[in-house]
């Protein structure tokens, strides 16, 4: 039972354009969502997060949008750069679960020069 889903295994975008990565979840008890970025042969690094009491959080070129009614979040990268090429994982957590994160399957972003 996949509670967090990233339905696009890969995404290709031209440098300078917007990258939009999507994530859907099924459990309405999730109250915190995160995006991680992972390069090959490295561990994931934290990118940006959003609490369920918000619908948008922005950090530089990265913005995360949360639509609770649709159980959907998205990560926007503007403008995309070749160094953004990596696998992106969304993750979710809920209260009183010991800090456990539930991860999606990942989306591999390729930004072409």
């Amino acid at each position: 039972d996949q509670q967090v889903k990233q339905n696009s295994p890969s995404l290709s975008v031209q440098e300078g354009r917007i990258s939009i990565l999507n994530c859907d979840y099924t459990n309405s008890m999730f109250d915190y969502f995160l995006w991680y970025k992972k390069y090959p042969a490295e561990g994931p690094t934290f990118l940006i997060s959003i609490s369920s009491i918000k619908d948008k959080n922005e950090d530089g070129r990265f913005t995360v949008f949360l639509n609770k009614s649709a159980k959907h979040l998205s990560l926007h990268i503007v403008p995309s750069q070749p160094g953004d090429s990596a696998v992106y994982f969304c993750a979710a957590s809920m209260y009183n679960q010991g800090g456990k994160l539930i991860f999606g399957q990942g989306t591999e972003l390729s930004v072409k020069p």
Partner: protein
Amino acid sequence: DVKVTQSSRYLVKRTGEKVFLECVQDMDHENMFWYRQDPGLGLRLIYFSYDVKMKEKGDIPEGYSVSREKKERFSLILESASTNQTSMYLCASSLAGGSTQETQYFGPGTRLLVL
């Protein structure tokens, strides 16, 4: 900066061997986690620990055990390695302290090949 280190970047083991993967964090975090990452499956939680000598099963604990004798160190043990345990293993830690809104910090990963 939080630093999470893993004892090996690459390991090659034989089927049936007992394998130890070590993880150390230097930020006095309460929570520590072990995941495996496989293509198309994302990160799956094997075990986690929220205190010394405490452990909880994750989603895929079969074939694994863990040990947390000291707060900063969390070990993953493959009791008898099998080829289907060939994977990338990732350790993470988080602060805990009652907040649900916690960021996990990851180590660089250990790529394990079981022959």
